[in-house]
């Protein structure tokens, strides 16, 4: 299976096709906090930098248990797992373009406004396995940085060095195509047809 090594260039993600399964290695930033997303957008609106540079990088909706070591020498990440990305639809178009993201992900996808932002930016959405906690957590190498530690663990802005996270399924590509939109439309058409035929 192909492994995407971060950071990535536009050509790297342009080549990815819906349904491709890939692994991801390198520094990945994550959070599942709505307040975290709001804070990121507020900083961008104020023209101030985010605490992490994600240009050509990845921002995933992964829920991670992380904690400070008792001896105060840093943080450890115990496990991670994706959550439903659609909760963050309102924030993602801004973050995708302003942060220069090449990969976003989690599970269940993003809306059309995000897909359009991804097309403009050159970015794909990866679907990871919900209920993949122990399997996916094998990719954790080390904690790179933890910001906003006043939040609960999974809401912090966390960057981990990962090795072969995945598999992730390319579910929204860098050309505006969304598997989720296609499948939802197909399902509605099939349901309408079944209802007409009964």
């Amino acid at each position: 299976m192909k492994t995407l090594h971060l950071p990535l260039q536009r050509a790297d993600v342009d080549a990815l096709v819906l349904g491709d399964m890939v692994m991801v290695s390198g520094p990945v930033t994550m959070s599942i906090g709505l307040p975290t997303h709001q804070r990121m957008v507020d900083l961008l609106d104020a023209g101030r930098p985010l605490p992490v540079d994600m240009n050509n990088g990845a921002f995933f909706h992964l829920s991670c248990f992380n904690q400070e070591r008792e001896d105060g020498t840093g943080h450890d990440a115990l496990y991670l797992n994706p959550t439903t990305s659609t909760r963050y639809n309102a924030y993602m178009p801004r973050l995708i373009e302003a942060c220069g993201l090449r990969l976003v992900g989690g599970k269940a996808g993003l809306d059309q406004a995000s897909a359009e932002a991804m097309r403009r930016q050159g970015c794909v959405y990866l679907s990871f396995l919900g209920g993949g906690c122990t399997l996916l957590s094998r990719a954790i190498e080390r904690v790179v940085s933890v910001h906003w530690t006043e939040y609960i663990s999974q809401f912090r802005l966390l960057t981990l060095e990962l090795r072969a996270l995945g598999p992730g399924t390319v579910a929204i590509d860098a050309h505006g195509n969304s598997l989720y939109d296609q499948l939802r439309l197909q399902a509605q058409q099939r349901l309408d047809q079944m209802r007409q035929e009964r």
Partner: protein
Amino acid sequence: MAITSEQIACLIADLYEWSLKAIPPDTRAALAGLASRESSVTGRKTLRVMLQSADTARRTGGLVCSDIGIPTYSVRIGTQVRFDGPVRQAIVEGFARMVARSDPPILQAVTNPLTLVRGHAGKDMPIVSFDVIDNADYLEISCAPKALGTGRWEALTTFVYPTLQQMEDYVLDTVMLSGSQACPPIVVGVGIGGTFDHAARIAKDAVLRPFGQQNPEPILDAMEQRLLRTINQLGFGPMGTGGDSTAMAVHINYAASHGFVPVAVSLNCWINRRTQARLYGDGRVERIE
């Protein structure tokens, strides 16, 4: 002999922990069956990763999913059971004990809806329903942690003199809304009739029914088959990235009602968390699932 608070607290903690670290055997078998029949390449691969994930968690004692949900228990009390000590307090203590000892530690999921403050405890937590079993000499406890992935899509509406078709359409519309988002293949539990609260309760009972039990009501047996067939023709597939494995099962309960008929739809994701055990007066624990 009487069942003690300590015995209840121990079982409450164990049931939750068991539910977090493995999927039910019938669910694993259902997923393996789907993997052998799935026509989509992506869907087939995703189902295999699901099996790998569940097996890895079981083998290593890790969590299947990091969203450990909020605690919900169903307690059925045999009428021959005697208690030595408080029961509800033991349930609260048992869940707190599981939180304190959990390895790995669990994330804070219990959320105050008024302040959005999160923790491991909160008002009415754990959510417990009680019922009785006539003449039984045991306490039967089921645990079904409820997480965000499916919890946000469960729904209830109240009809007046509905047709079977109207009720089926409501179930299908609810599944359509959850679409790719509820970590399919899902289990769909439906409660028809009774009152507002009772319909939700029997829908939850339905979603937790083990696979392979035929519905004793022929009308509902046929409805379950129709709905399962239709849902699996929608194409959402495993994790909602395409395929014909969108649901593992549809289970329907009903109760007599008035001219108004509540219909509740409960959903479980592919890991289908449910554990159940019986606790006897001599302290013996019989694990059902």
